[in-house]
């Protein structure tokens, strides 16, 4: 009898322990982001992101696709972030502290600081005396999208604007714009 009790007790102990462990795992992943030892945060998807990544996604990504900072040079982010009162016709005002924090982060991760091929291509296509605010107006972007007839995007109710990267690039939020992944809503794969 006492042996059975002992076994049951052990079983109970381990089930409680695993329950606690499970709860612990839920507690750390439940809010979607938790501090890792490196000071960065991990999301449920396992992608390591910093506090500023999350702030950028929240403050800028509420209204539009959160464009990766390496799509524009530092001077463009600087100009864009100093004119948030009239952000393409809308007010996107932030508190001075948040604006400063995000401007610093955008500049630090701008095209000049990136080794990504697309960032280099983007930089090369922008004239030295130009400070573009729209990624879509750059030579690089135009070259990559020039073959698209207006019917598949401008007249396509599920796309409408070329500013909506993720409408056709399924992994745009992860920074992947591979042309073999392109899928235009209502049209299908667009591989040229």
């Amino acid at each position: 009898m006492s042996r059975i009790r002992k076994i049951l007790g052990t079983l109970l102990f381990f089930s409680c322990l695993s329950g606690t462990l499970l709860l612990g795992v839920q507690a750390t992943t439940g809010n979607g982001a938790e501090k890792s030892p490196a000071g960065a945060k991990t999301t449920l998807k396992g992608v390591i992101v910093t506090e500023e990544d999350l702030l950028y996604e929240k403050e800028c990504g509420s209204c539009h696709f959160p464009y990766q900072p390496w799509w524009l040079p530092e001077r463009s982010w600087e100009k864009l972030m100093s004119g948030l009162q009239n952000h393409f016709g809308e007010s996107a005002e932030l508190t001075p502290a948040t604006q400063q924090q995000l401007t610093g982060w955008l500049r630090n991760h701008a095209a000049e600081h990136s080794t990504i091929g697309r960032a280099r291509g983007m930089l090369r296509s922008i004239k030295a005396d130009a400070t573009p605010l729209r990624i879509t107006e750059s030579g690089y972007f135009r070259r990559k999208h020039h073959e698209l007839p207006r019917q598949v995007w401008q007249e396509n109710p599920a796309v409408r604007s070329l500013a909506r990267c993720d409408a056709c690039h399924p992994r745009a939020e992860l920074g992947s714009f591979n042309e073999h992944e392109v899928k235009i809503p209502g049209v299908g794969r667009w591989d040229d």
Partner: protein
Amino acid sequence: MKQLPTLAAGVLLTFAAATAIGGTVVEALLAGYRGAGASAFDATRGKALYNGTFPGEKPSEVRQCTTCHGVDPNKPGLHPRTGKTIAPLSPGANPARLQNPDEVEKWFQRNCTWTLGRPCTPQEKGDFLTYLQGL
């Protein structure tokens, strides 16, 4: 099996606490608006503001809260230019809403400027929150 009712009670308590906190945030905001000169708040006026139409930059352009948030605040909206889905505005449908006073003020600042072409008055803000709370 005893754990089940305990768990259910815990969930209910947490939910009740969260609801109470939400109420407190809005209550504090409303008290602030009263302090800034607003009188009694009215959900009907808030609803009228939500559905109101305002002139845009071009003569043909009409601006409304519904332009982005949709006719029904209990349902998701859509930013007309960027195509971004906007989570429901009503705290009944989206418990994350009206939980942070700074967020509420930030969005009033941004969106009153675009929609009305000016900041909202404390009276308008209070009416608007009262309408959303009652949905």
